[in-house]
């Protein structure tokens, strides 16, 4: 197994949104533990962030504006700094869509993608699907992903187990990463 860690959309506008902060901020501490483990074992680390134009069509759909390119809301949260890998800007849900992620993973010889971040039922799920279609093995870290609602998170994790990969606890992933 040649893992790569992908931290999805841990951005100020998304994590510190008033309706989501209580749930989303809970994964920061386990995420830091995961990142530190990957970094200390020289496992490639990548970050994604939504970097949207001010008039992106998503804003009309969801009724709010977020992660506009060049704003502080678009930045990765301070708690995860210093960053230990490149930040890939994306405009769609899947981290692969219109980004150099696939090429970057191949350059690092990654065959297993470890996913964490937000939201489980949107960007995590679509990235897991896309990764599996590109023949990456997919591992989602259950304690390091979050959704606006518990039922949405559980449903998404079930979908990922059915169609795209495996869902493991943080402790199980840490054991795996330490073996590599």
């Amino acid at each position, binding site marked *: 197994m040649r893992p790569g860690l992908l931290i999805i959309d841990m951005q100020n506008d998304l994590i510190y949104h008033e309706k989501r902060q209580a749930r989303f901020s809970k994964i920061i501490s386990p995420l830091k533990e995961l990142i530190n483990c990957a970094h200390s074992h020289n496992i490639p680390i990548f970050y994604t962030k939504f970097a949207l134009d001010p008039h992106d069509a998503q804003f009309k759909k*969801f009724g709010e504006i977020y992660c506009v390119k060049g704003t502080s809301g678009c930045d990765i949260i301070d708690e995860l700094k210093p960053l230990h890998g490149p930040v890939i800007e*994306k*405009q*769609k*849900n*899947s981290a*692969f*869509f*219109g980004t150099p992620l696939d090429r970057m993973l191949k350059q690092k010889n990654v065959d297993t993608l470890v996913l964490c971040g937000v939201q489980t*039922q*949107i960007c995590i*799920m*679509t*990235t897991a*699907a*896309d*990764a599996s*279609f*590109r023949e990456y093995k997919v591992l989602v870290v259950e304690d390091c992903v979050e959704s606006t609602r518990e039922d949405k998170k559980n449903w998404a994790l079930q*979908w990922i187990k*059915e*169609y*795209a990969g495996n869902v493991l606890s943080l402790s199980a992933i840490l054991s795996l990463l330490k073996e590599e």
Partner: protein
Amino acid sequence: MLDEIILPQLGKRNVGRYEDSEIITLPNNKIAFTTDSFVVDPIFFPGGDIGKLSICGTVNDLICRGAYPLYIAFSLILEEGFNIDQLSTIVKSACNAAEEADVYIVVGDTKVLPKGKLDKICINTSGIGAIQTNIDISVYNAKVDDDIIISGTMGDHALSVVSLREGLGFERAVSSDCAPLNGLLREIIEPKYEVHCIKDPTRGGLITALNEIAINSNVGVLVQRELIPISRHVKAGCEMLGLDPLYLANEGKLIIMSPSYSTTHIMSRLRLHPYGKYAAIIGRIVSEHPKCVLVEESNGIRKNAPMLAGVQKPRLC
């Protein structure tokens, strides 16, 4: 544009001679005539593009009346500044589809609208096909006890397009099924085997098409969901997005209704054809609940499946 891009790409599939109208000779007096307009976003998708879609859609509409497609009128409406290389690719795709369908593009037109007045490109087509005199295939002709056959898996085109548009990741695993199906028609039309009804389940999917047949033929339709072939990737995508694959558009599939004595022949011929290898019998026409479509779920419960009103919107939130 005509001389430098469109005509060179159409090649031998264009037999028009630059007249205001083209004179064509038809093989017999019974012809089918259809028209359609095509807009799609994105205009290029896995398995095709709007050019291929326009020819296949027109050809398949003719097939649904048992007609062998012959000639197509092909008109392009472009937004000012439309990319010339993309236009060339689209016209070439249309030509390739015409080649596969063995149809000729005899007349056409181009118009350019000011920037902002059109979303890139729209294609309008009309098509003519010839029907053998003893053939009477119609959505008004479905009969009680007819078997309902579909020529392959459902939902591939729509999921591929939605996935590409929204950046969902499925476009690598699911391609549009866009294809001209006159080869399939040749396999199943024989004088001794009746076919009552053919329909292509495009916008609104299988269920909408079945409703149209049920209403027009004044019959009931009963299908079993677990008999309807759906690829694993389409199933996964639909579960992700909260879509019902039975309402998703297809661009290379046929629904066929035939009396049971014809069904074995039709099924064996379909399955030998590349576009029909996943053909399946999914239900039958019944006398109960006329003008209604019922879908029997895996638990045996039968649910009314009405026509799709509007468009299924993918849910990802």
